[in-house]
């Protein structure tokens, strides 16, 4: 942990615009988008955070500013310290943008593709920014807040199969879901995942809907 704190102290003295970020486990910092690459490069080369273990994103919901934050999880294989770096996306809600870190860590390639697929974040300088989980041509970014869990009706990836089977990508029937488990229940029967509101299902309409 002390190696992480040392790294935070170092990076804050080198880059005055870097601020502390609330975190319940590892030290974390907020970095302005413009300085992201130089901060990460400094952490990698000067502080030996040689492993980028995850790149992910947060959608703070419509109307928030910034709406999207990209989070980098760094790990040092020599000092066994971890650190988290967050940066807000620039650009509008439709096309939020951050610089790609693939030049620093080639392993970021698929992480950034996933964040692009799920949130629609453009990573500038990424060598091959395509969808990785959903198929090419899928029109939505499913982990955005405005996207419903059940999905939105659209067409199958293969038009020939779609024509032959008349099948579509449909909004999944939720049957009273989404289902939630209550945390901290000692009685396992009460802790079973169940629908928040069981008064409605596919047969009876949701009250007030």
């Amino acid at each position, binding site marked *: 942990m002390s190696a992480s704190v040392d790294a935070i102290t170092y990076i804050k003295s080198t880059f005055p615009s870097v601020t502390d970020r609330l975190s319940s486990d590892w030290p974390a910092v907020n970095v302005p988008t413009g300085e992201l690459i130089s901060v990460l490069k400094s952490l990698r080369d000067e502080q030996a955070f040689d492993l980028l273990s995850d790149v992910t994103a947060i959608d703070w919901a419509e109307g928030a500013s910034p709406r999207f934050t990209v989070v980098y999880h760094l790990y040092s294989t020599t000092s066994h310290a971890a650190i988290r770096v967050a940066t807000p996306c620039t650009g509008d809600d439709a096309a939020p943008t951050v610089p790609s870190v693939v030049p620093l860590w080639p392993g970021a390639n698929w992480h950034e593709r996933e964040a692009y697929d799920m949130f629609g974040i453009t990573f500038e300088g990424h060598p091959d920014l395509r969808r990785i989980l959903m198929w090419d041509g899928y029109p939505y970014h*499913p982990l955005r807040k405005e996207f419903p869990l059940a*999905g939105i009706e659209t067409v*199958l990836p293969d038009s020939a*199969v779609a024509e032959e089977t008349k099948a579509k990508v449909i909004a*999944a029937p939720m049957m009273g879901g989404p289902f939630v488990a209550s945390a901290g229940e000692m009685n396992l029967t009460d802790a079973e995942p169940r629908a928040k509101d069981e008064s409605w299902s596919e047969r009876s309409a949701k009250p007030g809907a």
Partner: protein
Amino acid sequence: MVTSNSELAYNGKIEGEVIVSRADAVINWIRTNSVWPMPMGLACCAIELMAVGNGRFDIARFGAEVMRFSPRQADCMIVAGTVTYKMAPVVRRIYDQMTSPKWVIAMGACASSGGMYRSYATLQGVDRIIPVDVYVSGCPPRPEALLDALIKLQAKIKAERSASELFTAST
């Protein structure tokens, strides 16, 4: 003088080495006892599907041990696992490449109905893209449940009018 017939089995000397039967019975007898499965293993159900092939459960007892990874050599597609929308056209194309007659077993909750995956990415039942003959409940089903499905499929094959389909011009 009447003698009791002690011959219970087929005797070639008496019958003149000729068996009289129905074409349906002969064709279905052949088809029933050599169902070659196409293992469409897409998720954890595939592990149970592999267990069915092992000696403990031994699908070979029912003549269906020849797992064919080429759809052109398979009779029965066992869809074992979650079918995502991205995978759905692939499943359909593999099904299209199987030669008739062909059957489909939807193994487990996901293949039958989407299971617990009520989400934007999961096909809500493989019967939306291919015709299913037998559904198996379970998440995942026990290997015995898949054997039961195979026995039910064999019963269905035995009841088919195979000869009329073979000897009349098909549409």
